[in-house]
């Protein structure tokens, strides 16, 4: 790359850091950054400037009620998690009205769409591969030992403020998969699920940067995992 080419990327870097590039431009920049040490270095240099911006605002005091409300919700979560250990708990997210149809439809599709390869699901140390197609989205779940890799193909490009978040349902509980992920330029997206023990359903939704505490929209894909 010559200096002129690099200047173009360099100019876009500040806009990228400020979240001011359009979705396609941001995706292009991210792909470039993956392979350009010079831009990575420039980004590391500029990031402290970006991080000072939220510190520059006029200080305001939140009301004490905000803290009380927040902690009440947090402690309610703890109590709910404790009560969930009891049998007969509800599958709260699966019963959300906005998602009900997609769940039913995809669970049915999952049953008829699986292809199981490479030795099935026995625990002999071999990888188990599940594949299916839904509305142009190819889903491949490779499970090896306790972990699994979820690979998606044909994913649309996301706005810069959105990420993909995977979820698993285990013993009736919905858990967020820690690593958020985004598709590459070819619409390929991949995330790792460290603990597949007891996972009955895997789902992916589009969420705001930083992820969500529970799915906020209809899944772009959902599949059952045979036990």
């Amino acid at each position, binding site marked *: 790359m010559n200096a002129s080419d690099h200047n173009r990327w360099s100019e876009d870097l500040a806009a990228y850091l400020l979240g001011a590039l359009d979705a396609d431009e941001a995706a292009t920049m991210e792909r470039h950054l993956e392979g350009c040490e010079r831009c990575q270095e420039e980004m590391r240099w500029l990031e402290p400037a970006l*991080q000072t911006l939220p510190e520059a605002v006029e200080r305001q005091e939140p009301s004490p009620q905000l803290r009380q*409300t927040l902690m009440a919700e947090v402690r309610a979560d703890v109590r709910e998690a404790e009560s969930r250990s009891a049998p007969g708990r509800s599958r709260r997210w699966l019963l959300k009205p906005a998602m009900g149809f997609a769940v039913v439809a995809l669970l049915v599709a999952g049953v008829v769409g699986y292809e199981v390869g490479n030795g099935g699901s026995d625990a002999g140390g071999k990888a188990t591969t599940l594949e299916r197609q839904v509305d142009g989205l190819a889903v491949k779940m490779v499970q090896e030992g306790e972990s699994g890799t979820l690979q998606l193909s044909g994913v649309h490009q996301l706005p810069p403020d959105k990420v993909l978040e995977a979820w698993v349902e285990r013993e009736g509980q919905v858990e967020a998969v*820690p690593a958020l992920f985004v598709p590459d330029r070819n619409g390929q997206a991949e995330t790792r699920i460290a603990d597949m023990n007891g996972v009955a359903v895997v789902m992916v939704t589009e969420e705001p940067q930083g992820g969500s505490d529970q799915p906020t929209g209809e899944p772009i894909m959902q599949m059952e995992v045979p036990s």
Partner: protein
Amino acid sequence: MAVRREKAERLADEELMPLVGRKDPEAFEVLYDRHGGAAYSLAYRIVGDRAAAEEVTQEAFISVWRSGARFDAARGSVRSWLLSVVRNRAIDFLRSRAGKAPKLTFDDDAALEARPAAERTEEEALHRETAAEVRGALGNLPGEQSKVIELAYFGGFSHSEIARILGLPMGTVKGRMRLGLEKIRGELAEGLA
């Protein structure tokens, strides 16, 4: 098992995060007490009213509580990460509330100085000092540079939208963003030298 509040207060943010990931309310409470003010201030700066700022702050902290394990220490401090979560939530809120114009002022010294002395802990004082330097750095930018940075960061506008708003070529907008951040960065580096 939750750690005692006194113990949590002695831990660094990076040490609190694994505890938050394990759903320790005491660790989370300490995290809020350290950064809730900055988070709310940022949310208020972006959304422009108290009720909405509290809603955004609450949503952001709850998302951190329920996904705390996702913090990656290699990518920066807990505070920066947390504030980026707040910023994204606030921008989402702004975009969902069509027609809301962002505030574009930075005249906050008086409000900061008016804060009760009891709130000025050592850490708070450090943040205040840093913030004062930063405000200086931003205040030192030519207006044309600070304006595009504010529209992007606090207003959530894309460079093409900013170009349209200000009647400038897109290249000019991106160039001013770059120059502005470089200038802030340069001043920070000088301050550390």
